[in-house]
């Protein structure tokens, strides 16, 4: 799916982004830049949750004027949005809110929880009884359950432990395999090896939009999953060509 922001303007807390254009079409992209550069504001503009002051947001050519369920957003510290009495109920909320029956919603919630590696023994526990990393993954499952085609994430790796980080990388791999469009606002340079594209913001403007430069990380990640040295070398050469 193609998410396109054209000549858009938006103001939040006296921070204005004006005349910004960005197109996302598949794959994982990173949105970086120093604090206050406008990353979260840009994510909000792309989320279809806010009304743009100027410009348009379209999904596959369709202009969006209100929130579209094909777009999911995971804000910073998503675990803070948890509210239900059990993990299963919380995860299935998005579907129940859209009128899907409880049984079907819970079945899909179980699938989503398996994807984010939440142990079955914890599905009927209170989400507040889980560890910080588990809570984060439950909250992510709560967004993934809607199966959005475009997923926007704001600093998803902040404040999670090593195990939680590994599981998050697994989730990214799965999203990538399914051909989802993912945009991650982050300061985490390690994520670059999973991204095809790096967008750098400064002062509310996109100052660089390029293919991921981390070809060494790319090579290392390919070598860790494949024994076919020739194929990996070929892929690496292609990547370096793409950078030129």
């Amino acid at each position, binding site marked *: 799916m193609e998410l396109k922001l054209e000549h858009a303007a938006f103001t939040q807390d006296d921070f204005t982004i004006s005349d910004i254009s960005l197109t996302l079409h598949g794959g994982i992209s990173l949105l970086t830049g120093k604090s206050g550069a406008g990353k979260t504001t840009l994510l909000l503009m792309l989320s279809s949750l806010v009304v743009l002051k100027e410009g348009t947001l379209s999904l596959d050519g369709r202009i969006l004027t209100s929130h579209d369920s094909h777009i999911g957003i995971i804000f910073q510290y998503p675990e803070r*949005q948890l509210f239900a009495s059990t993990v299963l109920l919380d995860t299935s*909320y*998005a*579907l129940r809110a859209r009128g899907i029956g409880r049984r079907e919603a819970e079945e899909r919630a179980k699938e989503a929880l398996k994807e984010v590696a939440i142990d079955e023994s914890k599905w009927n526990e209170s989400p507040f009884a889980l560890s910080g990393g588990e809570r984060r993954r439950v909250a992510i499952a709560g967004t993934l359950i809607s199966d959005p085609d475009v997923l926007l994430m704001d600093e998803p790796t902040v404040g999670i432990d090593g195990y939680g980080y590994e599981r998050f990388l697994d989730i990214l791999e799965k999203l990538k395999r399914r051909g989802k469009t993912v945009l991650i606002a982050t300061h985490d340079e390690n994520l670059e090896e999973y991204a095809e594209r790096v967008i750098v913001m400064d002062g509310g403007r996109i100052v660089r939009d390029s293919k991921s430069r981390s070809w060494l990380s790319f090579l290392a990640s390919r070598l860790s999953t494949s024994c076919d040295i020739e194929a990996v070398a070929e892929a690496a050469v292609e990547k370096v060509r793409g950078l030129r």
Partner: protein
Amino acid sequence: MNMLGFYQRGDSVLHCISPSSLVTSYFILLIAVVMLSSSLPGIVLSILLIIILYSYGGIALLPAVRALWRFRAFMITIFLMNAFFQPAAEPLFSWWIITLSSDGMMIGLRMIATIVLVTLLSSLLTAVATPLKITDGLRALLHPFSYLHLRTDEIALIISIAITMIPVLAREGRYIMLSSRSRGFAVHGNKIKERVLSFVPLVLPLFLSAFRKADDLTSAMEARGYRGEYGRKRKKVHYAKADVLSIILSILVFAGAAALGGVY
């Protein structure tokens, strides 16, 4: 910043007034503005006063007004409630419990004016004074009550923290709202109970967040050695001409408001 209640750095006259003078002037002006907002000329005068104060404080008024615009639904509700439900001797229209009257409309307008003016004035205070400065001002103002064995220092601190937390929680509330909308939040059902329950995904995380913040703040204060206000040494405040002038001007505005109140 167009978020109400945030401190904005500056070196204006208002930024330099001592805490106790600033808070005292604020309370005097607050009463004056409430008194003035009962009549149309008073509202106009209050608006002029607010414009002058904002320009002296070097704070942009427009962003604050824009931030208030977000509460328009709340204000329209207040106006409609007064316009249609105030009992009146000469109603414009009356049916069942609904009574539309010009008096009700005027009361509604005055209430909105009072809310807007008081919010703008309070926002100016928080824009020109840090929470610490407001606490010091409140402490000085409440000091006489300490002779009645009231823990005025603690009261001042609680009020100050509450003021500081309002915009923080408002911002957090906004993100929780957006997050829930992204997950398909909607008000469901026809029964009141169902509709109230559908707000749980918004209200519960906000409450939890407020408690968590309070808990974190308590721990942080204790970790930094806060053991209550008893026995703490404070800097001696030196009053300047601007302090005396601010209180005199505030009293003059108050006297003017009282006099106008008699006229209208």
